[in-house]
């Protein structure tokens, strides 16, 4: 009995520590975003805004009415979604081929993919900058979509091919005997069964694209293609020596919301054990 209580207290304590560790920065940014600029400049150490130091929703209104930021949001959503969509489609087809077909150079493809995933992103910025300027891809959506795709594809391919390997061959053969072409079998049987894998790959890709800062800041120069993380760093306000911390905090919160929503939405789709009952097991 006593050990039971002890272990319960221990668990609660552990959870509290981990939550505090993970969530404190997030909570603090939220707190900061509700303070007025003046209060932040004068020093406002408390978690809740001091008397008269609260700004209400004003910071959020300012951020959302800021033209720069609005562009950045559109850019970020557009670029991330397109990169995710293309990456997932290509990864699904590639992973299927890797899982199902025997062809020369299969190992080579897989190891190359892994090497690319391990490649330091920063080392590519210089060459890409030069190339994109020559190809007129500099400061365009496509100029960001391409590097995002090439860095997320390897992980997506690895995740998905593991999922495809789990799906029994008989599923597909049954579909073929039932009158399906290879493409129909793939689309109507294999892809739905691999859906958890597809969503996992999609989320990973979206995270990478949404959170990227290095490419975002170095391959763009104007509002045409600059994504949120890069835009936040350009958010200097009138006084370059006195950055609008509370406004930035509000911007950061706004940038985090889509990710949280996305995860909560897809979490329901990522249901393991979807294949339960497919075959006797």
């Amino acid at each position: 009995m006593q050990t039971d209580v002890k272990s319960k207290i221990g668990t609660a304590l552990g959870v509290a520590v981990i939550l505090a560790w993970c969530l404190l920065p997030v909570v603090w940014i939220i707190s900061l975003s509700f303070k007025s600029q003046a209060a932040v400049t004068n020093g406002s150490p408390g978690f809740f805004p001091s008397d008269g130091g609260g700004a209400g929703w004003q910071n959020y209104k300012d951020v959302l009415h800021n033209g720069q930021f609005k562009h950045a949001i559109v850019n970020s959503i557009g670029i991330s979604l397109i990169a995710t969509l293309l990456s997932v489609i290509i990864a699904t087809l590639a992973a299927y081929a890797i899982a199902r077909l025997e062809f020369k150079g299969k190992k080579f493809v897989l190891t190359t993919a892994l090497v690319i995933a391990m490649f330091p992103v920063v080392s590519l910025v210089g060459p890409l900058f030069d190339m994109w300027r020559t190809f007129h891809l500099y400061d365009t959506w496509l100029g960001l979509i391409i590097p995002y795709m090439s860095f997320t594809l390897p992980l997506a391919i690895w995740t998905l091919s593991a999922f495809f390997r789990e799906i029994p061959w008989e599923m597909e053969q049954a579909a073929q005997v039932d009158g399906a072409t290879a493409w129909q079998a793939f689309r109507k049987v294999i892809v739905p069964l691999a859906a958890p894998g597809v969503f996992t790959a999609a989320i990973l890709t979206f995270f990478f694209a949404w959170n990227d800062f290095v490419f975002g800041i170095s391959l763009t120069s104007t509002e045409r293609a600059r994504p949120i993380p890069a835009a936040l760093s350009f958010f200097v306000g009138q006084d370059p020596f006195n950055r609008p911390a509370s406004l930035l905090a509000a911007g950061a919160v706004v940038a985090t919301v889509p990710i949280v929503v996305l995860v909560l939405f897809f979490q329901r789709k990522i249901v393991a054990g979807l294949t339960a009952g497919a075959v006797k097991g």
Partner: protein
Amino acid sequence: MAAIEMKNIVKKYGDGFPAVNDVSIDVADGEFMILVGPSGCGKSTLLRMIVGLEDITSGDMIIGGNRVNDLAPRDRNLSMVFQNYALYPHLTVYENIAFPLRLAKMSNKEIDEKVRDASKTLDLDEHLQRKPGNLSGGQRQRVAMGRAIVREAKAFLFDEPLSNLDAKLRGQMRTEIARLQKRLGITTVYVTHDQTEAMTLGDRVAVMKRGVLQQLASPRELYEQPVNLFVAGFIGSPPMNFLPATVEGDQVTLPFGTFSIPSAKAEKTAGKGLLMAGIRPEHFEDVSVIQSGNVDTSRTFRAHIDVREWLGDQQYAYVPYEAEAEVQAQLKELAREADSDSLRTQLVVSLDSDSKVTEDDDATLFIDTDKMHLFDPSTGENLTVGL
């Protein structure tokens, strides 16, 4: 509906090993054909070549008069039930059964009619909206059958459909499959390693071993006139007894004594040296339960009963005997080929349930040498087939 003709079918894998070697089988329209054999004999490979999931190395596969060697599975219009059912887990039972119809682009009304019809036949009405994951093994099996019968395929192919079910359900489903096939009258090829299924379901049975067709005959013929040692040992449970034998004149010498055999059998086998005699357990009887006037005393022998198994309707008695090393080795090989294992050389005899033989005691047994087969031990060939 169509006949399936297999002409000299060969399947070689990359390493050159022939999984199926020169097999020719004609399945008549509406016939129930069984492919049976121990694991690795190529029966499933042959089935998969019929349906098109395996390439044919050489030979002709003719379905309904058309050579289909190069057709994709979807163009052969056959339906198949897989060993593990291969149901689509993301679809309901209804959609699983409707799947082939949807691919054929039928109208919703037509699909609904056919699915309801199939589900009624298979007693699946109350499960139509459930997912396969929530069904029991027998129900999944029925869904797989539903998917097979829902469209008008030229033939049904079954790949060990009952091996995942428990014994009781297997018996029920076996009868169900037989009834369904008789009613629909559709050509069926059924792969199994279970000889009960083979004997009870098939119009004809093809016994295979290591990719080679051993015998293609009705169940009765397989049982009564096996062409070689393998078929004789594989069909029947408990299996046929094999004993070393020599024939001189019309007398056969077995480890238990010398008995007379019919002259037709003697003529074919006399003077051929050491042979292998095959006698089924039921061709022995305890002399004490036979009416005294009917006992041919020249065909009785004393034997030491080791173990007795009383089953109610009959009983098995085990009679160990000593055999030469050469014979033992051959018996072991035979047992291995048939996927079983024999630990000792012994005779299994099936006696009337009234017999009062006791364990670890001697009994007088009658041997029906009329039903005995004699095999050439080197080739395995049955020398007395048809006699």
